[in-house]
């Protein structure tokens, strides 16, 4: 698929990715006091690779695997969630979502203008 619909798919995928990332970060925050819990993240590189390969043009990309975050300081109870970092990640992700959504809205309104004249 090319042209305007592909852009919608791309932005839609980006929104979806932000939503999934929100879930992963929420999981990290919910488990900030769970002994032995290891911080996870969505592998964005894997996601981008799949977008580049054109998979997103066929539809939405589902089920991205999460990976363990390396190089974090572990507490005595085996938990390595960096609380402040996760809260910042959450906010960053929300802003990213806002950006994608605004872009999508702008695209839609342009299209509407073209249709209504």
């Amino acid at each position: 698929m090319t042209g305007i619909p592909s852009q919608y798919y791309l932005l839609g995928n980006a929104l979806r990715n932000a939503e999934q990332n929100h879930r992963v970060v929420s999981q990290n925050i919910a488990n900030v006091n769970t002994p032995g819990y290891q911080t996870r993240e969505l592998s964005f590189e894997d996601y981008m690779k799949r977008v580049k390969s054109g998979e997103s043009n066929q539809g939405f990309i589902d089920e991205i695997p999460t990976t363990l975050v390396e190089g974090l300081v572990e507490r005595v109870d085996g938990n390595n969630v960096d609380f402040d970092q996760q809260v910042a990640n959450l906010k960053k992700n929300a802003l990213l979502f806002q950006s994608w959504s605004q872009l999508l809205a702008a695209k839609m309104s342009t299209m509407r203008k073209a249709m209504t004249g």
Partner: protein
Amino acid sequence: MSGLFSAMDISASGLAAERLRMETTANNIANANTTKTENGDPYRRKSVVFSSELQKEGRYTLASGFAGVEVVGIESDDTAFPMVHNPGHPHADEDGMVRMPNVKIPTEMVDMITASRSYEANLSSITMFQEMVEQSLRLLQGGS
């Protein structure tokens, strides 16, 4: 856990867990001077044990879904009761020593603060998700 609003369920499980931890801490502080309980011993400090729902399943993709945090139980602290010399106390033994609860107020205060901070973070996660959903809904309305 999956579905449209699973992000909210994840954070909600965090809220519930932290609230329980807060209640346990409050109970510990309230009983910091209880020298006699039903079984005759002084009050034993309780602590909440958390477990990640994810670890239990042992799968790590979004396909299996996240389920937040789960409270597996409330355990008693088995450390020894401190002995305090207080002959005037009704529960003092022949030597005038009283077995006190093994609650340490500074530990409880730290626990309380971390619980309250984690609670706030889970709450802000829910608020952010709500904003994201509202934004998506505005897209449907054809707004900005």
